[in-house]
């Protein structure tokens, strides 16, 4: 791992729309960052679908999850981990990821879980 593991790790396992879990994870990340506890974010399984570019939420009158994700660097949330297996599962290996994102395999995910102090899953 090129960056130290975060103390607080948020594991987000839901697609961005249709349920509020992904949004809750993101709001928790922003709130924790506002308290100087910038967490790490692990996009696991279905959670990688949050990273799809060119989301357009106008049609569904909901907050654009992708755009809010783009603001994470401004909140100093810079430890983003992306489940490589899930990307392959959805055929998204070639998808452009946020600059801070690191691809992680099962072993790297395990290291993250063990390295942090606290895990919250969404």
């Amino acid at each position, binding site marked *: 791992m090129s960056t130290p593991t975060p103390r607080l790790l948020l*594991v987000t*396992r839901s697609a961005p729309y249709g349920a509020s879990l992904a949004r809750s994870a993101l709001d928790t990340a922003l709130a924790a960052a506002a308290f100087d506890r910038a967490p790490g974010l692990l996009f*696991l*399984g*279905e959670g990688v679908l949050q990273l799809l570019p060119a989301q357009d939420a106008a049609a569904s009158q909901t907050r654009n999850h992708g755009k809010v994700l783009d603001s994470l660097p401004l909140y100093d949330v810079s430890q983003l981990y992306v489940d490589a297996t899930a990307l392959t599962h959805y055929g998204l290996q070639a998808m452009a990821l946020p600059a801070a994102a690191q691809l992680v395999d*099962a072993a790297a*995910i*395990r290291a993250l*879980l*063990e390295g*942090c*102090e*606290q*895990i919250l*899953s969404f």
Partner: protein
Amino acid sequence: MILHTLSAAPDTPAFQHCLAQLQAADALLLMGNGVYAALVGAPAGQALGKACANLYVLDDDARTAGVAAQLGAGVTPVDFDGFVALSERYQRQIAWY
């Protein structure tokens, strides 16, 4: 060492993610719909047991679901005090649901 709590049924991604991250020294507490993996003879439970020897099931949920009388060998029922004790024993906890 991580305490995993699994409250999703065996056919879910949550179950698969839990299984993928489960290691021998971890503990796994089955609760909610996760208790179906504790059924004796369930391949799901056997897969979990292969990964980790410390399998527990929340007794109330197992009774509710009707699986309490058919628990696989090696699955230990615990009450809420037992859950708390597990939380104290393992520094990290992750919820799969």
